[in-house]
């Protein structure tokens, strides 16, 4: 019917940077849908599954992992130049996630491990940063690890467009839709106050506080969240500390040093 069906399927590459490769693995976890999904794209390269060199031409670059070396900076720039669309997947790529915990005082940390010079295999190290700090990212699939169906949904958005809003509201609304009480009523820290919604408040729904893997919302009101913590008998410093797990290099937190 539409022209898109007659066009050649989009050529996709999947690349991993500094990460545990868990998000790439999550893609395989769509199991019964995997063949369906692969049938809609022309998968040219998947780092997890092959040691072939990366092709010269492609349409969509899927990037997992944080940027932690100058080599990685070059890689993502090249990907951006060639790809029409860039999708960052997982907390490492989106917020620099867990790798970013090494960012404060990075040079000293590296020196304390490697001495004057890191081994060549490390590449030229730089403080871990999200992909979006190096290149423009078109779509993000959040969380640690990603929800495989969330990835498929984003891929569909790239292939066909979508009228779905991508809200920046924070998590508590989803938590209430799950009809859950609040950890703060039990003097327990939960990062849902400032974490971007989208995961369905899955951890609080399973009885565990949110640790912020979806990243801070750009509309997060951290000052107000600290006040909530203080009123609820939770030391606000613990909220700041907890944010370091996935949000160390978030620019909106940088001002507090």
């Amino acid at each position, binding site marked *: 019917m539409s022209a898109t069906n007659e066009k050649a399927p989009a050529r996709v590459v999947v690349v991993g940077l500094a990460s545990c490769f868990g998000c790439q693995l999550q893609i395989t976890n769509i199991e019964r849908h995997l063949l369906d999904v692969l049938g809609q794209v022309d998968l040219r390269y998947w780092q997890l599954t092959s040691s072939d060199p990366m092709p010269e031409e492609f349409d969509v670059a899927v990037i997992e992992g944080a940027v932690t070396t100058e080599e990685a900076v070059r890689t993502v720039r090249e990907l951006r130049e060639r790809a029409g669309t860039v999708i960052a997947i997982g907390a490492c790529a989106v917020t620099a996630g867990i790798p970013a915990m090494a960012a404060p005082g990075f040079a000293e940390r590296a020196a304390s491990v490697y001495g004057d010079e890191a081994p060549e295999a490390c590449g030229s190290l730089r403080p871990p940063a999200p992909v979006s700090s190096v290149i423009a990212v078109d779509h993000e699939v959040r969380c640690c690890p990603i929800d495989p169906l969330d990835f498929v949904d984003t891929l569909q958005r790239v292939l066909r467009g979508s009228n779905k809003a991508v809200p920046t509201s924070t998590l508590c609304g*989803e938590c209430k839709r799950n009809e859950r009480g609040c950890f703060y009523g039990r003097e327990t820290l939960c990062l849902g106050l400032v974490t971007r919604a989208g995961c369905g408040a899955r951890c609080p729904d399973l009885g565990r506080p949110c640790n912020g893997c979806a990243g801070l919302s750009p509309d997060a009101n951290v000052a107000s969240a600290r006040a909530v913590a203080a009123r609820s008998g939770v030391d606000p410093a613990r909220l700041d500390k907890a944010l370091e797990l996935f949000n160390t290099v978030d620019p909106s937190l940088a001002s507090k040093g």
Partner: protein
Amino acid sequence: MLYRVIDAAELPALVDAFMERYEVIAPVRSGRSFAFEAVGSFDDIVLDYPTTITSPKKYVLPPRETLFEFDAAANEVADFVEEVTPRVIFGVHACDINALNSLDLVFRDARYPDPYYAARRDATMVVGISCTPSEGCFCHLVDADEARTGYDLFLQDIGGRYLVSIGSVEAANILEGACNPREATDEDRIAFRHATRRRQASFNPDIPNIQEVPMLMDAFHSDPFWEELGGRCLSCTACSSVCPTCYCFDIRDTMDPDGVHGLRERTWDACTSPQFAVVAGGHNFRADGRNRVRHRMYHKLNGFMAAHDRNLCVGCGRCVYACKAGISPIEVLRFFERKGADDAD
């Protein structure tokens, strides 16, 4: 209105009779709170629950529902007819009955009737129950402490027995079949008056009773108060998620992983969501917490009144508990109280 009296011991038989024909939804314990859920036995029901985290709204306007199905390859739309389960929502407080009545005004507006809502609402019976106000309740200040219409039965606890107001023939027949309803005596009526007085006396006296709230809302539209209140908003949408009268929704298409089949879905939206007032071209009419929270309070305490002659806020208190930032209509009432005190100085 027709009134009858039944003994408290007859309630299980009434619920059983409903269960024979309907799915029965009722307040049950859920963690440290309460929730409306389908129940299998009278014993699961907590008749004296204080409030629930979310409201019975979810049974007439689900958080996510399918409007139709489509096939993107064939470019075809298939009408989607969901099986609507005939239900009884048992144990609904007056505020929530008034909330359903307000939702009716919106979704059954003859100009834009909503068939999805109507199908569910038509298949839903409502059995109300009297309550004791909790700390955050202020239904009496927004004229929602009494349900005059909108129920099939309303059970008023008058001590070991219930004064039952009967709102529908269907429910009357079930009551008649399951219990031995008797005429109310003078003694019952006196007990009813006592119960009503006791309830009125137990509202939280710290929540100020302000006259002419809609007018004050207009008068103080530009007050710095809105920055103070909205400035602490977390943009979480918990308020609208728990509110029995928030009815805003979004519509979106969700594709199957096969890239061919899809659903057009309706999901709850909230004016406290940062993108709520973004229009084509990218302009956001309410780009900050001040504007968003003020808008929400205006709709609850002013705008709906102008259109429908009743407060949209029914004073259920749910957002009072759900909003971690302490934003609720009560804060607006307190602000007006302070303004009044300022004027008196």
